[in-house]
């Protein structure tokens, strides 16, 4: 016969016994200070956005909220209650922290005062402080408030470990088809149809039974073909009451843009989550299992929550009325322009800042068009998108384009800018214009053809990138580094003209000189010398010699006798004899005696002397 055996306790069971004993020993001597606090998770929100009022109590037992919030303009979208027990050393007692959360959704703007609420804690009633909530009007594109969920049949919610593998639920009937589910996903699309390029906001909601602490991954998996997904916000966590069951719900907000017309199939979105579920008893020993559950011993289970797929009817943008400069913007926008600096030197660039703000597909749209850019050099703009602080998804905001302009001519204003978009609400194209901004820009030269300046005439509707070669010159006129003034043409023509001019000037000067008294005197001297040379020729007859000699004297001293001109006696005598001989030859009827060579020499000598001294 076998001796009875004592069953061995597992470590978990031993730990449960130990903690139970410690609690029993420590509780009587433990004393705690109670505290009640309340806070709003945000002081200012927009209409339709959810805010949480958290009432936190600490004491020996769970706190209980006794009042309900009834404020006109605030709807209670859900409540949640969480508590946490912790050892309080050195007194070795248990402190219970309770957080009761009330989800409030404002239905109108204004300032709301949430009155103080009564809380029962450890047998006493406490009051929270009043809270003030400011609600601003909703900007465009807000995500709708959580839709009402039909009340499912009340049923037992079992821990996830006991449920079937997760299934997606219908967005509007998450639990009605299968009330056994402890978690479900929803995809909320506020409209059934859209235009190509239009931004459609989407809510992705994932709910888990609030009885099971859970932890979600940072981002859901959501993508598909035929559309682009904008940024997904950080999740907001709310508590929902569905048919009396509390659910922890996280909401991701995002938006999609359809790329083509037709029926768009939007695949399900999914998210991974970890759920804390109570441990199950390792055997049929329900005593220890119950103890472990009572002391918060839990297991971690990893699950995936998915939404259903959805459909969206995507309509093409109309061809009618499509502006030439339409570059794919769909939404509702306004435009503003400014320029710096106000005064620019020649060649100094001016920055034209154009801000397109509103809501729409900022990521896909092209820049505004600069009109009447003749006389400007326009460079492709830089762009920077700033989402609205109240819309982290990115379909509300402003996009700033900075054009660099350089004046080719003097300008007193920037060229106007123009922006065209399709407004899906009005279902038509709209063109808005930013006015010319007054500036003073000094330019230079005549306008040159500029490919980028013609963008108002030939816009790129699909925002095709401009070819790189647009910023190259196509003018290859041959030139040279030699100064133009030294170019062969100038030199050749200049040299020819200079030669002609110099020759002409020389001729002019020669003529002027020829007409001068000195030139005339010189010519006379020369002619007299020539005449004297002729007289020296032996071939002359005596008569010709006498005629020539007396004529030469008379030319030098007209109407004067040799005695009147102050000659020497010898010269006077020679000349007298010459004149006498000439008279004889001229008037005598008889033949004159020939002139001797000595006489001729003396006459010539005298004439030489006269020519060299008296003229």
């Amino acid at each position, binding site marked *: 016969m076998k001796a009875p055996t004592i069953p061995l306790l597992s470590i978990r069971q031993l730990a449960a016994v130990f903690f139970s004993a410690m609690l029993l020993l420590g509780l009587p001597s433990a004393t705690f200070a109670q505290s009640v606090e309340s806070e709003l998770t945000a002081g200012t929100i927009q209409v339709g956005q959810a805010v949480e009022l958290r009432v936190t109590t600490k004491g020996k037992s769970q706190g209980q909220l006794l009042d309900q919030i009834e404020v006109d303009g605030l709807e209670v979208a859900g409540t949640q209650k969480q508590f946490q027990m912790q050892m309080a050393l050195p007194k070795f007692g248990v402190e219970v922290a309770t957080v009761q959360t009330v989800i409030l959704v404002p239905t109108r703007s204004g300032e709301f005062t949430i009155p103080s609420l009564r809380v029962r804690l450890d047998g006493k009633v406490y009051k929270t402080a009043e809270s003030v909530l400011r609600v601003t009007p909703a900007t465009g594109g807000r995500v709708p408030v959580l839709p009402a969920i039909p009340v499912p049949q009340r049923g037992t919610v079992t821990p996830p470990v006991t449920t079937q593998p997760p299934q997606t639920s219908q967005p509007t009937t998450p639990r009605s088809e299968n009330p056994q589910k402890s978690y479900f996903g929803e995809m909320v699309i506020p409209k059934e149809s859209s235009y190509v390029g239009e931004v459609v906001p989407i809510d992705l909601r994932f709910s888990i039974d609030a009885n099971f602490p859970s932890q979600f991954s940072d981002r859901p998996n959501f993508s598909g073909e035929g559309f682009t997904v904008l940024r997904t916000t950080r999740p907001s966590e709310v508590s929902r009451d569905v048919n009396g069951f509390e659910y922890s719900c996280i909401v991701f907000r995002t938006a999609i843009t359809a790329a083509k017309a037709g029926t768009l199939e939007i695949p399900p979105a999914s998210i991974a989550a970890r759920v804390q579920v109570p441990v199950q008893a390792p055997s049929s020993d329900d005593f220890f299992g119950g103890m472990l559950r009572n002391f918060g011993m839990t297991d971690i289970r990893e699950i995936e929550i998915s939404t259903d797929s959805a459909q969206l009817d995507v309509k093409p943008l109309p061809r009618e009325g499509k502006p030439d400069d339409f570059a794919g913007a769909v939404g509702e926008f306004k435009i503003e322009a400014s320029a710096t600096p106000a005064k620019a*030197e*020649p*060649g*100094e*660039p001016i920055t034209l800042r154009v801000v397109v703000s509103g809501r729409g597909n900022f990521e896909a749209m092209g820049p505004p068009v600069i009109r009447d850019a003749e006389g400007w*050099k326009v460079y492709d703009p830089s762009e920077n998108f700033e989402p609205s602080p109240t819309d982290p998804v990115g379909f509300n905001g402003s996009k700033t384009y900075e054009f660099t302009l*350089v004046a*080719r001519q003097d300008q007193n204003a920037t060229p106007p800018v123009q922006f065209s978009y399709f407004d899906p609400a009005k279902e038509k194209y709209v063109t808005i214009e930013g006015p010319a901004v007054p500036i003073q820009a000094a330019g*230079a*030269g005549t306008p*040159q053809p500029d490919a980028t300046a013609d963008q108002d005439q030939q816009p790129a509707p699909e925002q095709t990138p401009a*070819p*790189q*070669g647009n*910023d*190259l*010159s*196509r*003018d*290859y*006129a*041959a*030139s*040279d*580094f*030699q*100064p*133009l*003034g030294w170019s062969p043409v*100038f030199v050749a*023509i*200049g040299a020819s*003209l200079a030669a002609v*001019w110099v020759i*002409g*000037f020389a*001729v*002019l000067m020669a003529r002027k000189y020829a007409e001068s008294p000195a030139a005339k005197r010189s010519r006379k001297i020369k002619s007299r010398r020539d005449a004297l040379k002729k007289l020296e020729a032996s071939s002359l007859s005596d008569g010709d010699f006498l005629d020539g000699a007396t004529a030469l004297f008379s030319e030098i001293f007209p109407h004067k006798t040799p005695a009147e001109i102050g000659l020497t006696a010898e010269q006077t005598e020679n000349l007298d004899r010459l004149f006498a001989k000439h008279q004889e030859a001229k008037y005598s009827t008889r033949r004159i005696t020939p002139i001797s060579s000595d006489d001729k020499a003396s006459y010539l000598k005298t004439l030489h002397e006269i020519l060299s001294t008296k003229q």
Partner: protein
Amino acid sequence: MKFFRPSSKPFLLAFVLVATCAMAEPVSDAISAYESGDFSKAARDFETALASGPKSAGLYFNLGQALKKQGETGSAALNFRRALMLDPRLMDARISLSDIERSKGIPLLPAGWKDQLIERVPLYPLLVSGFVLFWLGAFLWLVLAFQQSRNRLGLVVGLVLALLGGAIFTLAYIADPRFQWRDGAVVVAADGVSLLSAPAERSPLVAKLPAASSLRIIRTSGEWAYAKLGDGKSGWLPQNTITELLPEK
């Protein structure tokens, strides 16, 4: 004897066409490379076109653009300046050069009268008009003088025209960037260069010149060049850090 007989004209035409095509091929290759984003090949082809064919402001500008895309700002600025030497009114080159100078923090000096003149008035017509006016006046004066005319007004008009034309021609000649920048150079060293007070490496620093800075070379001594900046500062710097604007030098 005629230099070209009538039968030689087709050969002359063919020669011109061949020469044109020889330049056109590297240019079209360079543009294709540039459009496809291969800026290195584009720069090489533009350099080939400039080496094998006639110089042009457009080719220097394109070469500058290709170099600028590669981040070679000093060489890009050099070629933009060369383009502006050949065509002072090429605004695209002026703008690109201004972009580089601003990005390098090179101060914008106020434009002198020569720069303002060539920016506002086309240089070649100015030279031609000065040339024509000068010779018109000179020959008017000469003819009237020849005729021993007593038309003093005509003589004065001729003289004034000649003086005016000569002045215009001289102004245009002096303002011509080919003449004005004949001793110019650009810092092409990527990291810039130090302008020193003496031609020795450890000399006191006069100024730190970033790439693309322009200067005038006053004289050279060995491997050093004595240069003057637009703001009046002067000093020595290694010759291998700069490139002269005149490519023939």
